């Protein structure tokens, strides 16, 4: 039966598609467009990193254009981490910087005609879970078991289940925020290109500027900012 709810919407396409499938221990596993886009993004980032490493190996006193750009990026990321984490910045600057660049390039890949990999919950949930692991690893490392138990039973001991729920809510809300923001951009762009394809010439660039560049950059910043805030909070004053 044809889907009557979405009648006249054959051109709208923002779903993830399977490219090919293979058998893995009896399960059918699909390689989807998300994997392909992630691969392209990864190749871009690795190529840039390799070029930056080569440029830094023969760094000069007066930097050239490329070396200048690389130094600018690193300094900007370091400053961002330093502003939130203070004296713990040195330990986390690498991770936060890598995640920042990865999410930013993922969100901007909509400009290259790819489906942004971050519009797949399978990409953003692991990012949220990594933050979750970092928070609790650092909590146990710095506050010890006693401090963690005391924090769990914060106002009163019977409050513990509610605190547990709030711990679990952190990765869920972090990942859903990033996912839904990028997905909303993807859906609106798909609607514009699908339904208005005969007049969609030139002017959708304005929408790309908002949904891909502005929204993508803001969400990247928010993700990294919240990760840093949570981890700083977990480390505490000690």
């Amino acid at each position, binding site marked *: 039966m044809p*889907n*009557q*709810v*979405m009648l006249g919407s054959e051109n709208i396409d923002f779903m993830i598609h399977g490219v090919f499938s293979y058998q893995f221990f009896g399960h059918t596993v699909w390689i989807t467009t998300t994997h392909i886009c992630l691969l392209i993004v990864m190749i871009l980032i690795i190529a840039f990193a390799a070029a930056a490493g080569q440029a830094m190996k023969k760094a000069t006193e007066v930097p050239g254009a490329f070396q200048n750009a690389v130094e600018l990026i690193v300094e900007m990321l370091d400053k961002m981490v330093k502003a939130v984490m203070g004296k713990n910045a040195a330990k986390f600057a690498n991770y936060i910087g890598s995640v920042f660049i990865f999410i930013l390039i993922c969100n901007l890949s909509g400009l290259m005609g790819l489906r942004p990999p971050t519009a797949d919950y399978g990409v953003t949930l692991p990012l949220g879970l990594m933050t979750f692991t970092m928070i609790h690893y650092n909590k146990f490392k710095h506050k010890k078991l006693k401090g963690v138990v005391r924090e769990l039973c914060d106002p009163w001991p019977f409050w513990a289940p509610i605190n547990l729920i709030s711990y679990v809510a952190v990765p869920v809300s972090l990942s*859903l925020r990033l996912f839904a923001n990028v*997905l909303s951009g993807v859906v609106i762009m798909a609607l514009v290109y699908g339904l208005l394809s005969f007049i969609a010439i030139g002017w959708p660039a304005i929408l790309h500027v908002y949904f891909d560049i502005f929204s993508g950059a*803001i969400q990247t*910043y*928010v993700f990294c900012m919240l990760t840093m805030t949570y981890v700083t909070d977990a480390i505490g004053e000690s």
Partner: protein
Amino acid sequence: MEFNENFILGCSAIGAGLAVIAGIGPGIGQGIAAGHAAAAVGRNPGAKSDITTTMLLGQAVAETTGLYGLVIALLLLFVKPLLP
């Protein structure tokens, strides 16, 4: 009791419409944030860049609840979890 597939799809569409009403909350919240940021810039124009950054961060976090509604609406429309 048995329901026709079209009935379930229609109800899913109504549910999706109701779910995006969640957009009202973030709209009010972001408006309040922007209004207070404008007042703050008026009082202290020197801190404009700091205020803008804080405002955008707060607005992006406030947006989350609206996006939950959007996710539910999209699930109802495209994943169709209620169909047998």
